[in-house]
């Protein structure tokens, strides 16, 4: 069964550093998403991406965040200057008319 692949599975970074989280969506999906889940809290929408541009973003997705599809397969989330409160599990997802598929997540810890 096709999967959404996320790397790395864990990332520890110092406050103020830039991080890039990587995702390989399912190949024939056209819509891509990033969500995050702070420990013990609900999963929150960050951004959706279609046709090489952002189609929707949440209030959380401020200027510190950016997304990119640098080639035909990867989909990345960049956090320019990480804060302690950015510590969370970040999920990538892609969707088709049959529904969503989520990756297994990247656990980001900002110290």
């Amino acid at each position: 069964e096709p999967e959404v692949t996320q790397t790395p599975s864990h990332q520890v970074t110092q406050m103020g550093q830039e991080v890039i989280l990587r995702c390989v969506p399912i190949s024939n999906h056209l819509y891509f998403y990033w969500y995050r889940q702070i420990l013990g809290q609900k999963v929150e929408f960050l951004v959706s991406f279609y046709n090489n541009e952002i189609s929707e973003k949440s209030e959380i997705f401020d200027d510190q965040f950016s997304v990119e599809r640098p080639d035909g397969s990867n989909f990345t989330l960049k956090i320019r200057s990480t804060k302690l409160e950015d510590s969370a599990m970040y999920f990538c997802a892609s969707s088709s008319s049959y529904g969503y598929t989520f990756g297994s997540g990247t656990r980001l810890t900002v110290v």
Partner: protein
Amino acid sequence: SQQGEEDPQALSIQEGENATMNCSYKTSINNLQWYRQNSGRGLVHLILIRSNEREKHSGRLRVTLDTSKKSSSLLITASRAADTASYFCATEGGPLKTGGTSYGKLTFGQGTILTVHP
């Protein structure tokens, strides 16, 4: 309450029993989805029910949707210890595109923690 609120917050049952989890939401939706998450792991899509559907089955899962009450329920029959996980409902709204899927954002609830004792 917020969009996608599950009830109960925690449920503890014995293996073989049925588990029922409820979800309520506030705004109109295109579809409602249920996900499972094992502790600290990824989200596994269980089932999607469109706004024009009332009931759907998948194996031991049964989902109902009542759009007039803005609520859904997930029933897991003959539960197993391996069903122990958090279960989330997620609603999808936004402009309808094709087949009841808008490709819009999902709004998740807080989840129900299910513990099935062997």
